[in-house]
């Protein structure tokens, strides 16, 4: 029997038992589709996190007050309980390196903000114009925070898009006054809506100059300092420079933590990569379950078609020919399942991607290949047993049944 004829015969058998075949294809396609969708979500999460970090600027160092390093019992005596605060002077000192392109000190707090009789409690972020560049924030109206002397307290502010809408509605805001805490500030700009940007909702914030924020909260300490290195290669020298400069300024005490974007990103990448594998594995289990289903159904098919197998033998089919027929049937089932599963999976991925446009959901190629090949291998593996049973049937007994 020729290959093509065997395939055709197997295919005819599939279409001959339509309901059974459809159910099998369904089971298989659920397996394949779940592998695709689950890995797609995993990859999407990874892409999303990477994207978020990229929006922070990939050459970035974040300086946080306090030392987050576990030490032995000896170390506990040397590390002070309360770390020294980061100050504006620290931030200014960090500008003095060829490896550093931008420095943005950040003060974070919250306060009552009111305008036109409406009042809200909103996070208030004190920083500089550099932060807009580092974080790739764009303005829908007006200008960013003023450049120049960091120490200057200027009563101006930039609003997040949500704040603007809630306090002013559709009214024009540029040049209007906003009461922040016990001070009045002139509105000079509105941020373009941008969703979440690690930690702070940029839509729901009021931005003021850093010195203004310090005055507002009556505290000279900074929440953190964002430092942008000039190039990717200068991240390490910049990090050393930051550490050394601050140690010098803090009387030889290394009391800050410097996080590089790369390290954080790599960690997240690793975690989310593992997550993708894990959910992909869960999908693969459903594929194996589908494989066992295929085996069951093929076994039933063999006993249902005992007479047919006996007949084929009587007509001169070889043992190997019958083995082939049933194996092809199982593999065809699984292939069909893989094709349908791919379509369903891609449709699911597409639906997810259009529901959550900010998450780049996409099935990685390896998952696609793995899903389809696991489906086919499953077909072969779980098809062998039923096919062998068919091939080994005794034609006399097979034909003696009606």
């Amino acid at each position: 029997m020729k290959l093509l004829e065997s395939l055709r015969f197997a295919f005819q058998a599939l279409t001959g038992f339509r309901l059974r075949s459809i159910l099998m294809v369904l089971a298989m396609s659920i397996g394949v589709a779940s592998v695709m969708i689950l890995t797609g979500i995993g990859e999407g999460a990874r892409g999303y996190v990477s994207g978020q970090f990229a929006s922070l600027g990939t050459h970035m160092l974040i300086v946080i007050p306090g030392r987050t390093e576990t030490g032995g019992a000896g170390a506990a005596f040397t590390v002070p309980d309360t770390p020294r605060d980061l100050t504006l002077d620290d931030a200014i000192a960090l500008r003095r390196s060829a490896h550093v392109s931008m420095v943005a000190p950040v003060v974070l707090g919250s306060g009552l903000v009111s305008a036109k009789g409406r009042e809200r409690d909103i996070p208030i972020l004190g920083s500089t114009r550099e932060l807009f560049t580092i974080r790739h924030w764009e303005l829908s109206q007006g200008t960013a925070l003023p450049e120049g002397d960091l120490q200057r307290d200027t009563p101006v502010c930039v609003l997040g898009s949500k704040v603007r809408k809630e306090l002013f509605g559709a009214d024009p805001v540029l040049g209007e006054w906003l009461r922040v805490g016990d001070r009045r500030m002139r509105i000079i700009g509105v941020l373009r809506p941008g969703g979440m940007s690690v930690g702070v909702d940029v839509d729901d914030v009021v931005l003021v100059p850093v010195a203004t924020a310090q005055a507002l909260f009556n505290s000279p300490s900074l929440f953190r300092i964002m430092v942008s290195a000039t190039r990717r290669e200068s991240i390490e020298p910049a990090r050393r420079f930051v550490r050394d400069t601050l140690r010098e300024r803090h009387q030889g005490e290394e009391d800050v933590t410097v996080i590089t974007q790369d390290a954080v990103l790599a960690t997240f990448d690793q975690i989310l990569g593992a997550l993708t594998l894990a959910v992909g594995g869960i999908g693969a289990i459903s594929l194996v379950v589908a494989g066992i289903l295929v085996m069951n159904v093929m076994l039933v098919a063999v006993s249902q078609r005992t007479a047919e197998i006996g007949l084929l033998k009587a007509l001169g089919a070889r043992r190997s020919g019958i083995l082939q027929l049933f194996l092809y049937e199982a593999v065809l089932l699984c292939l069909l399942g893989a094709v349908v599963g791919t379509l369903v999976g891609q449709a699911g991925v597409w639906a997810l991607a259009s529901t959550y446009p900010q998450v780049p959901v996409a099935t990685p190629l390896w998952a696609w290949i793995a899903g389809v090949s696991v489906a086919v291998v499953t077909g072969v593996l779980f098809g062998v047993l039923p096919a062998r049973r068919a091939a080994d049937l005794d034609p006399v007994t097979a034909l003696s049944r009606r």
Partner: protein
Amino acid sequence: MIRLEGIDRIFQVGDQQVHALSQVDLEVGTGEYISIMGPSGSGKSTLLNLLGLLDRPTSGRYFLNDQDVSGLDDARQAYTRRRYIGFVFQFFHLVPRLTAAGNVELPLILDGVAPAERHERVKTSLAEVGLADRAHHRPDQLSGGQRQRVAIARATIMRPQLLLADEPTGNLDQASGADVLKVLEALSDQGIALMVVTHDANIGARAHRAIRMVDGRIVSDRAQ
């Protein structure tokens, strides 16, 4: 054409040994028309299965065209069945999802015949059994007699030398049984050796040679 020498076939049923055939010797010439009769369990079907290479003798030798075929391997046996032997069964054994033409085509597919030639031969073969207009009907759309004639077309499309029929009319009414028998006899006239196992004395009497079996032995074998 066929020579059986001292054929024994012993089945193990539980701890008992059943002699389905004992010391059977038989010669069959080209184009003979033979009926095999006997009570249930006398070994008629076992003999037919052995002749059709579906079963192997426990001992003894089977010569087909002077070649010992009792010890062939699976592939050679399958080849011999395909080329030299045709089967007709009491319950037709048509593949339900295939059309009449599809069923008749099966042996040709198994033999690797090209599609164009297959098509022609199937057409001729169906016409010979008077079913040219039923080629595209599935078995469940055919009457019993028509189904058996499809089965005969399938059994003879490879032009076998030996046609083995196990109760070919056992599942048919009188009229279609007679039709089927006529078709079979016409084939026998064309030089195919026909061996029919039957319970029906009328059919047995129509054959040119009658074999009677009891308890796995041939008790009478005469021309008529």
